[in-house]
């Protein structure tokens, strides 16, 4: 039986240490192919723990509240929100950018880390991709209901209407957004689904009830694990990753164009695309940590989603958090260096104007709190990292709030200045969108493979192979005792 790192005691192992000349194991606890299948399938096959039902009850009620509020919004109109001159783009756009940003981590982990051969991605990519899909769903709701007449939102598409007989305006960033977010949502969905096909086949083959077996048979499209299929499958996966990598960078770039292409001080800046992309990766990874820390505990997946995975994610959070901090500083530098009085005013107003509190919450959460990850103790302590990830989520919401609301509330014309106040509906609907997100995520845990089983096994085989080669090179007797394969 093929195993990895059999000489280590899983209880004492610290795979966050990199010992020179020896690869740290990606998964711990003497795992075999059988045990990996067992561990992942158990999540869906065993009765869900009590905490799942509590969370599901709470979040599905919240989701129902959100849907009812959307119905009320469509009936009553967007006037129930606090959007008012001069802040016409308020929470709906803030929430849209917030959710789209979170939706960047999944495809980034699946695509970019795949292209860079970061094998540790295999334990977390499925959950992160699922999170991406659900976050993009939450994001997509907001522009759809913000257009006012939500039943005509399909006019955003190039649709040859007999009534209108006109086409959308392709020189507008808002239309680019429709295409970027639409492409991202659908490509992420097929990427996620394609990745799940082999694991759905595993679920099918382990099903006890005929109904369950039939449903998973249909979902996995009759996957057999044929090597001829695997060859095409892997090629398709590589192509998708190569396509999704620039796509994931383009989406938040296009979202930032919504702001950067306008003339408003604080928005009209070339730094926005990289700044937004860094922020999106930052918030997305924070959300992955927020979700995975409790998930690995509840479903006892600590041997698959190890501290090394969390440590790596925290390093990315530290790097992107510092990038975001650099962007905040650069904005101030450009405001001073350009000697543009409107630009200078906007940034001084951001930090010391009526929304100073939002600005400093943002800086504290986004720039200062991830700096704690310089310490390894913070990076490997699950409670500490969970708290920091929550801070980052809060901070990233405030970043979008600061960008959107402070710039709009005080533009060129002092006569139209105002102070934005959200209404009860703004708050309840934002809270409700978390209900939709969590409901979908919990259903995902219950019914779909939460970890990419076949990919984890593939990496196990690869690292065993690497260890074998390593041992041969070092001339050691590296006892794995597998059958002599003709390498």
């Amino acid at each position: 039986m093929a195993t990895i790192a059999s000489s280590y005691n899983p209880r004492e192992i610290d795979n966050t240490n990199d010992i020179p000349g020896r690869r740290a194991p990606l998964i711990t606890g003497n795992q075999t192919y059988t045990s990996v299948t067992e561990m992942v399938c158990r999540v869906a096959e065993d009765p869900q723990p009590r905490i799942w039902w509590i969370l599901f009850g709470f979040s599905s009620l919240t989701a129902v509240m959100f849907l009812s509020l959307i119905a009320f919004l469509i009936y009553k109109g967007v006037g129930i929100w606090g959007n008012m001159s001069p802040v016409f783009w308020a929470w709906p756009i803030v929430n849209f950018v917030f959710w789209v940003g979170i939706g960047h981590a999944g495809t980034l982990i699946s695509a970019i880390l795949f292209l860079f051969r970061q094998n540790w991605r295999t334990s977390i990519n499925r959950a992160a991709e699922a999170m991406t899909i659900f976050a993009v769903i939450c994001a997509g709701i907001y522009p759809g209901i913000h257009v006012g007449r939500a039943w005509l939102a399909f006019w955003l598409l190039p649709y040859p209407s007999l009534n209108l007989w006109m086409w959308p305006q392709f020189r507008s960033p808002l239309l680019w957004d429709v295409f970027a977010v639409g492409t991202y949502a659908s490509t992420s969905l097929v990427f996620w689904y394609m990745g799940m096909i082999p694991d759905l086949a595993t679920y099918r083959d382990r099903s006890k009830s005929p109904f369950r077996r039939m449903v998973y048979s249909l979902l996995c499209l009759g996957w057999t694990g044929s090597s001829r299929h695997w060859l095409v499958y892997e090629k398709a996966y590589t192509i998708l990753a190569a396509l999704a990598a620039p796509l994931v960078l383009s989406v938040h770039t296009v979202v930032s164009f919504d702001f950067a292409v306008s003339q408003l001080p604080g928005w009209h800046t070339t730094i926005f695309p990289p700044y937004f992309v860094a922020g999106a990766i930052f918030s997305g990874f924070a959300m992955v940590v927020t979700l995975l820390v409790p998930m690995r505990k509840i479903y006892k997946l600590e041997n698959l989603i190890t501290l090394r995975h969390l440590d790596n994610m925290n390093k990315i959070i530290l790097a992107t958090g510092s990038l975001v901090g650099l962007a905040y500083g650069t904005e101030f530098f450009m405001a001073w260096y350009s000697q543009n009085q409107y630009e200078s005013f906007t940034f001084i107003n951001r930090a010391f104007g009526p929304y100073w509190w939002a600005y400093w919450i943002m800086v504290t959460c986004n720039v200062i709190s991830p700096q704690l990850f310089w310490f390894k103790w913070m990076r490997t302590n699950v409670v500490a990292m969970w708290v920091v990830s929550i801070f980052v989520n809060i901070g990233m919401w405030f970043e979008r709030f600061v960008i959107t609301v402070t710039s709009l509330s005080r533009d060129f014309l002092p006569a139209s200045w105002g102070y934005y106040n959200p209404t009860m509906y703004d708050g309840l609907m934002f809270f409700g969108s978390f209900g939709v997100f969590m409901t979908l995520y919990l259903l995902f845990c219950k019914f779909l493979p939460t970890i990419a089983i076949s990919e984890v096994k593939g990496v196990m085989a690869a690292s065993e192979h690497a260890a074998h080669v390593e041992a041969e090179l070092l001339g050691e007797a590296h006892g794995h005792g597998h059958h002599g394969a003709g390498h």
Partner: protein
Amino acid sequence: MSEHKPRKTSEPKPPRSTGWVAEFSNEHALLEAARKVRDSGYTKTDAFTPFPVHGIDEALGIKPTILPFIVLCAGTTGLLTALLMQWWMNGVDYKYIISGKPFGITPASIPVSFELTILFSAFTSVLGMLALNGLPRLSNPIFTNPRFDRATDDRFFLYVDAGDRYYNRESVKELLSSAHPESLDEVMEDPSPTTLPRPIWLGSLLLVLAGLIPAMIVLNMRAGFSDLPRWHVFFDMDFQPKKKPQQTTTIFADGRTMRPQVEGTIARGQLTEQDPFYLGWDPSKVTLAEVRNPILVSTQDPAAQDPAPAQDPAPAADSPKSEVVVETKPADAATEQKPADPVAVPPAQTAAAPAAGAVPNLPWIDRLPIAADEEHMKLGRTKYEIYCSTCHGYSGFGDGLVAQRAASLLQDTWTPPSSLHLDRVQKQPVGQIFHTISKGQGKMASYASSLTPKERWAIVLYVKALQRSRNATIEDVPVEDRSKLSEAK
């Protein structure tokens, strides 16, 4: 083989064998066996593994896939689609100017082109993968082996198909046995029926048909006509919570939605209505009761006044056709008919009708408020020739090009323009001519929106000069200019 129990349903003959499958516990054993099978010359082989085993393509002799080329074509199609779409939609079919940006393919086309390239490629790589693999395929003989469930868990299977050129049942069995598999089974055809049971088939058909019903109703309603008012699924802006003039309200104590002018305030344009220069008559010579007259109300804002109801030709058309001659003033007849035909003319129109139809007996001013000098005469001539001469003619006889053509067509609906040299027009005070230009008369529209008051007065001056010229004697010409006149002849 002993574990394999083919379902004995209505099929009397035993299921046919499709090949042999050997089970291995790890990928190394599988690779070894695969090489052995390949070296024996078998090509219709396959391996089934829980994850992609590296080296298996070489060990089985699997050729590389053409998927990348398919995706390349799809990506190019996506790019061209996006470019063509943007060029056609914004550059050809629906061109509109926005911030002076150029039409067609511009740098602004890059984001959408990029996204569609990705979209087409991504879907093609997934659908292409499924198509090249022959998926979805829900019925597969290999699934009849219960051990095969572990192919997606922890076991590795090697399969040799009976359709292979060199296939021989016994020798394949021997070959696979020599690789020491965990188990070796013959794969049997799946005897279970491959067609859908009839109730499912009928049920789905009914569901599809039922699903078409709403679409058919919508299509029928879109294509057909109906006398009934349209359905308002969404009210859009068809019904708005607002009050219109003449409606009642509970907001104000007097119950009226229209509000009187606040005391001590002046509305925009209100000052001009007191000035004969803008009116052609002198409001200070009229009593308050007369000021309440709808005529005066309608004079408050000449620019905003809607000439349509005031110029309604319906009364004129109702009048006997014999009256429609140059000398007739059809609007006069309309005024006389007004009380007799209240249905044809709604109250709102009758209130405004006198402004255009009947010329009220107002205190017209009879002196020009502008100087009768050469500059104004030239201005008046220019404007007359632009705006008036098309109907009234260059000399004012009502023989302009429009009038000539209309007369040649002999249409009943045409009301010929008046000659300016008629006795009653000659007798009109300058203020009344100004009023006619400003408010229109009969079928003549108001020119208040095209001409400033000064230009209108200049036209009045020119019209007066025209009238004088048609009834002048040689005595009217200054002595020193009489010689020029004879030269011109």
